[in-house]
Each structure stands twice: as C-alpha cells, then as structure tokens.
C-alpha cells in the first residue's frame, strides 16, 4: 500500500490532483452544498455535473491535442475547426425544411464531422508531407478558419431551433449529460486503442525521434496525418457540443481560445511539449483543474477584474510544483530535514549544482 502511495506521489499527475482537491475544498468552504448531486426531472443535477459537462468539449480537444503533442507537434486550429463545424451544422439545419427530423440532424452532424476530418487531413498534410512546422501549419487554419466560419454564418449569430440537435448539448443518457458520455467514451476508446496496441508506442517514438522511428520501420508520415485528422475530428465534435449547448452558432466566440485551454490541460497533465511520453488521464485531470478553476471563480465570488490573476496564480503553482527542478529541490530539502547534521547534506547539493 505504501509503495503504491509513493508511486502515486512520485507520478506526474500527483500535484495536479492535489491542486484539484484543493480547489474543491475551497469551493466546499465557500458553498457547503458544492458537492451535492441531486436528481432533478430524471437527471443528475449539481455543480460537479456542470463542471463535467462544461469541460467535455475541452476534454475532447485535449485528447486529440495530447496525441498531437506526443508527436512533438501542436494544433492551434482546433478552436477554429470547432467554430466551422458549429457554423456548418447550423447553416444546414436552418436551411433545411425539416430541422426537427432526426435524420436531417444526423446528416448535418455527419457533414460537419467529415468536414472537420478533411481540415485535419489538410493540417496533417502540411505537417507530415510538406514538413511545415506544426505551429505554423496549424496557425493557418486558426486564423483563416474563423474567417471561413464567419463567411458561413455571414457574421451573424445563428439561433437554432432543432430539438434533436439540442440533445447533444443539453440531453441526458441515463441521467448523465450527453456531452459527458460522449467525452468519456472517446477518452476510454482512445486509451484502449493507444495502450492495448502498439500505436501509443509508435506515437511516442515518433515524438522522441522521428528519424530513428522511420528507420525502425514506423510509417511516421501516415501516423502524423492520422493523428492531426483525429484531433480535428474531435475538435469538430466539440464544436457541435458547444453550438448545441448555447443553441446558436457564434462564429466569433465558439471555441475561442479553447486551443490554449486544451494545451494547458495537456501540460498540466504532465505531457511534455517536447514530445514523447504522454498521459491521457493526466489530460483529464488537467481539464478538471481548469474547469473547476472557472467554477471556483464564480462560487467564491472573485471580482472579474482579478479573475485572470487568480487563474494565473493557480496555473503557476501547478507548473512550479510539477517542474523537475523544484521537485528535486523539494526532495533535497526533505532529505536535509531528515538528516541530523546539516553540514553533510550541503556537500552533495553543491556537487550537483556544479555538475
């Protein structure tokens, strides 16, 4: 048991989990009913459920982003792809004579997802075949994509009235919000596929050394293309959930800055931006930290002008706690305290600094 505990305290997600628990404790102090979950009109209702549902789009994008980052890449275009998919589905439903027909909705959703996938193939082609740096390659769609979404909506906020489509954002499956179920299924399936097959290892090896993996026989270009396409597909799905949740396509604001939230979640979760090892569970914890942080601001009543500073402080705390250098210092400090004579402890420390 104690070995397991030590394993956990040494793991990369230990500190993010500590912060998450800390935020929840703050919320419970500010509002004792924070963790209450009740059943209202046949579904679960409560602040934790809101956190899960509002975090679902970020988690979907975070899953794709984790894999992209593991290949030493980055995808900045996810927010714009989400906006495009929301715009496309809204335009299709608004121009359809039968927006309440489930089959119409299935078709519109299908078209939006296929379009997202195609945009991902575009990203992947730029990165894998034309060898453009990922940050530049995806920057193109990040800026142009929102323009495309604006063209589709003609700069308007398109309000939707389609019952079957609203199910995505505000419907329930056995008491759980649809968005949460979708995100959970995607997370679990992705974890199974990357961990139960060699795919995860391929991704990590491409991220650590693309050339060596190529020589070892991994088709890194096809793999990269596939991962960017998968990431964009999830972004399109997230766009549908956001659009359905607010029952309107808002080309300006749908998925705005969600790429930064997703990247932050991935990093908080312990996946290195240098590529290689990745942790999907870590990303889940990262998303929960970010979303709980947002809710904490409202519950504790932090004034809007101070919100950004508050968020920054928490993020800095997580990063510092996670950093290997701080951890090492912290470990040394603990060792120092255990040792009776301080003089001996200082010596190895000096060696380390000089080395």
């Amino acid at each position: 048991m104690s070995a397991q505990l030590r394993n956990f305290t040494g793991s990369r997600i230990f500190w993010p989990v500590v912060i998450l628990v800390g935020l929840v404790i703050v919320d419970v102090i500010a509002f004792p009913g924070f963790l209450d979950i009740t059943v209202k009109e046949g579904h679960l209702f409560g602040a934790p459920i809101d956190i899960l549902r509002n975090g679902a789009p970020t988690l979907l994008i975070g899953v794709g982003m984790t894999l992209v980052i593991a290949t030493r890449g980055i995808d900045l275009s996810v927010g714009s792809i989400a906006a495009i998919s929301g715009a496309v589905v809204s335009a299709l439903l608004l121009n359809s004579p039968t927006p309440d027909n489930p089959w119409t909705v299935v078709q519109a959703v299908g078209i939006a997802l296929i379009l997202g996938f195609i945009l991902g193939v575009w990203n992947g082609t730029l990165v894998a075949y034309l060898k453009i740096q990922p940050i530049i390659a995806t920057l193109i769609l990040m800026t142009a994509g929102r323009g495309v979404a604006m063209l589709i909506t003609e700069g308007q906020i398109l309000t939707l009235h389609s019952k079957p489509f609203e199910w995505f954002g505000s419907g329930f499956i056995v008491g759980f919000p649809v968005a949460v179920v979708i995100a959970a299924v995607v997370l679990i399936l992705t974890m199974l596929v990357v961990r139960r097959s060699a795919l995860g290892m391929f991704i990590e090896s491409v991220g650590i050394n693309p050339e060596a993996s190529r020589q070892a026989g991994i088709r890194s270009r096809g793999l990269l293309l596939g991962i960017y396409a998968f990431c964009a597909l999830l972004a399109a799905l997230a766009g549908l959930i956001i659009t359905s949740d607010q029952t309107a396509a808002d080309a300006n604001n749908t998925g705005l800055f969600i790429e930064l939230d997703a990247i932050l979640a991935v990093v908080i979760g312990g996946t290195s931006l240098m590529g290689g090892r990745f942790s999907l569970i870590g990303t889940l914890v990262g998303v929960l930290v970010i979303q709980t942080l947002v809710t904490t601001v409202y519950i504790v009543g932090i004034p809007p002008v101070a919100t950004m500073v508050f968020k920054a402080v928490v993020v800095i705390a997580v990063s510092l706690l996670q950093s290997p250098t701080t951890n090492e210092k912290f470990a040394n400090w603990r060792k120092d305290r255990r040792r009776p004579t301080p003089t001996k402890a200082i010596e190895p420390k000096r060696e380390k600094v000089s080395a």
Partner: protein
Amino acid sequence: MKKYAAIAAFGAAALTLAGCSSDGGTDEATEGATAAAGETEAAAAGDAGDMVVGFAQVGAESGWRTANTNDIQRAFSDAGIELKFSDAQQKQENQIKAIRSYIQQGVDIISFSPVVETGWDAVLNEAKAAGIPVILTDRSVDSTDDSLYESFLGSDFVLEGNKAGEWVVNEYADADSVKIIQLEGTTGAAPAIDRAEGFIDIIGADPKFEIVASQTGDFTRAGGKEVTEALLKSNPDVDLIYAHNDDMGLGAIEAIEAAGLEPGVDIKIVTVDAVHDGMQALADGKINFIVECSPLLGDQLVEIATAVYNGETVDKRIVTEETTFTQDEAIAALPERAY
C-alpha cells in the same frame, strides 16, 4: 439649385482628378452631375454625393453589431454616399490599421466604434493632422483632448443602467428584500462599466436590493449560461438577474431552465439591447424587461457626417433615440422590428 449644381460640378472635377485611385470615380461623378442637372435628387445628394466616408467597425461579435453594420451600410447607400467599410474583428490594432489606411486614401470623414476606450491619441492625431474629421459611433474614447473628434453619436450606457434600475424599483416596490445576480459585460468595456454604474445608482438607494453576485459573462450566451449555472447553485434563492446584454440573458434562461425553474416567473430577468432573439424571449415571457440600445444609428450618422462635411458645427455628444420594452410592448413591436 444653382449652388448645388456648382458644388456637384466641382465634386465631379475633383473626383475625375482623383479618379486614378478608384475605378468607380468617373461613374459617380457623372451620376452627381446628371442628378444636379436633372434636379431630381434630394439636396443631400448634391452636397454630399461626392463625399467618401471610411467606417471602421468593431467586428461582428453579436446580432446587435450586425444590425448596426447593416443599418449604417443601408443609410449611406440610400443617401448615395460612398462608404468604405472595414471589420476589425474586435482587435484594436486592426482598427488602427483601418483608420491609417483611410487617412492614406484621403477619405473625407472617418467614423468608427472604438473596440476599447484607450490608446487612440496617436492615430487620431494623425487624422487631425491630415485634416480629416472623425465621428465616433456607439462607443467613446478616453482622451483628455476632445478636439480629436468632431462628435460622438451613441447610446448613453449609464442612462440604460438607470432605466433598468427604475424598472426593478417599480417591479419590487412591495418586496422586503430582493437578491440580484448581475451578469457583467466584458471586463473594462465601457457598456459594462456604465451599465453597472447606472443600475447601482438607482437600486443602491434602497438597502432591500442586494447584488449577491456579479460576474462577467463576456457578453456571450455561453458565458451567461456558465456563470448563471454556477451562481444558481450557490445562490438558489435569487429573485432577479440583470444582464448587461440580451445574449447573456438568453444564456441565463437556459441555465435557469436546466435548474428546473421557470425563467421570467421564478427568477425575473432584465437585459439591455433588444436584439431579435432577446425580444422573442421577452414576448415569450422568459425575459421581463429590456432596455433598448438601438443599433439603428445609420441615418443619424449620415446626417452628422453631411453636416461636418459642409463645415457646420455639430454637438460633441449626440444620444441615439431609444426606448424600453415590456413583455406586451415586445409582442406588439416584434413583427416590424428591423433586427
């Protein structure tokens, strides 16, 4: 009429001289000349028809803004005045670029809705140096030097907050205590600051009104929904939501419905703007009161631009004509609303 013909002819000459910069120049000059000769066009076309106005819009962030854009474009096109239009996508640097490009093109009047209040002195001085008058619409700038612009046409946001506050005071005249959640606009934006100030000025006089929570929803539906969702959990006994725009109010409606309550009855909602979706919700009884913040200022802008162009002095501050709507008024007004 002779005078107008002369002006039109002069304008035609000027446009022919400047014709190399735009292909449409000669066409319009001919148009102006024929109009004056035939004496068919209104006087405005004679003395403003050759005027070129550059308008730098904030963006297309809301239905309100889109209605604003459409009305300005319609008004200038009706008046036969050439309008150069740009969209800054809510970024100040884009807007400054657009204004600089208008200065280089040598337009006659520059008009814009500032994205933020500060940081305009440099570019406005450039316009002043080039002798191009500037008219602000909808939002003002925070500058000590008010000679940098000719006039500011727009809503009085403090007054809007006052109107919302007055309705609340009347509505709850018999209540003992009223708990209010305020959904603020984008932090630091003039409408957010002024609408909060105007509201508190009125309700602050009576201690029974208590703002239990005030958070920003960034003027968006998603923001309004997320904030309301969280605040309803920690303040379940809230009586009223005051949202700084319709979109956040619409988001709040969704959050209230999700909590199993009835918006407009269990929790009353007051918003500002009166865009179409908001008016629909008001007519449906989900919002209780909307203070109009009219985006339809195109005709007033044309009038001011023409006056400035003709060298007349205009007021530094011109308030847009606006009203308020109750649920019954919304039902009556909805069929003929332009936006």
